[in-house]
């Protein structure tokens, strides 16, 4: 699957299927600070991602005081 990430903006290619949780853990990302989006739709933690999916992992943390 193709995974789009930010800060810095980059694209990763990951082999095979994954659950959302497993993917976040694998990438060292906290589930409280990210959303996983596929075709404009959110995918929940135990949602299954296909090997051919294009997904965005969007950080949700704002830094302003």
């Amino acid at each position, binding site marked *: 699957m193709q995974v789009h990430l930010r800060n810095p903006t980059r694209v990763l290619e990951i082999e095979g299927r994954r659950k959302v949780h497993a993917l976040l853990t694998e990438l060292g990302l906290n589930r*409280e600070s990210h*959303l996983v989006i596929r075709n404009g739709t959110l995918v*929940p*933690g135990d949602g*299954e991602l296909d090997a051919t999916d294009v997904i965005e992992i969007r950080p949700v943390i704002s830094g*302003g005081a």
Partner: protein
Amino acid sequence: MNPGSKCRTCRQPAIIDLPRHNANFCAEHFLELCRRQVVKAIEHWKLLERDDKILVAVSGGKDSLAVWDLLIELGYQADGLYVGLGIGDYSDVSGDYARRFAADRGLKLIEISLRGEYGYDIPTAAKATRRVPCSACGLSKRHLFDKAALDGGYTALVTGHNLDDEAAVLLGNTMRWEIDYLARQLPKLEARDGFPKKVKPLVRLTERETAAWCVVRGIDYLVDECPIAAGNKHLGYKATLNAMEAESSGSKAAFYLNFVERMAPLLAGHLKDDREALRECEQCGSPTSGDVCAFCRLVATASAHERVPVELIMRGRR
């Protein structure tokens, strides 16, 4: 679809897991949960009245657009206020998001440009005052929000602060036992000195929830952060709290909400009343303890300084 991810309410496929509620939700019931949390905050802390004339401080990011959207949806009358901070591309782009949101919905957006109207921007102000950019930025925003609310006859100033924001500030203030700041850290600050009340309707929603609200509602917001924020303390506190949240769901909400319910009332008596010492700023009429208020002093210093690009102060910080 695997059997685990069903909506708690309707058993349809879920789109989000909310560990602190120990449940998954479909789009419709996720939105309903968000609305309920906002209504609960508004009612419990008496944040807003039905006839309030509301001004929402809008940045183009997820929280301010979400709170504006929610208030309009809940039937409140709310205009937006966008302050152009002059932080390079970030400010140009964030303004576009705010304008597009307002235009698409036929909402009124008031715009103020620091550079256009006061002759400075945040990077220049930071350099000129030799203070951290967020301090000049916070001072400018507070003053301009107050002034716009007063000039426009608004009765409530709304900001998009969410649970993570408030918990992070609370953690920072607790680590240093800043009693005065702690005593003031409430979802509502009453009107005073002619200024409207200030309220935070999103404090029962986490950052992940406000972002998800925007995704589900199709709200296009600026995902990229203010470049100045990178690596600041506030983000460090958020990361710490989220690490704790990962170990124990709901700890972030308990930390903040129990503070407001149990600790804030104990601190209320310690709130220093600084009103007696206040008089009117000679230049702008705002309440101040000196002759000229901090904002007018900032304008004088910053507008006299040559223009500083944001990249320059970023380099200085690293």
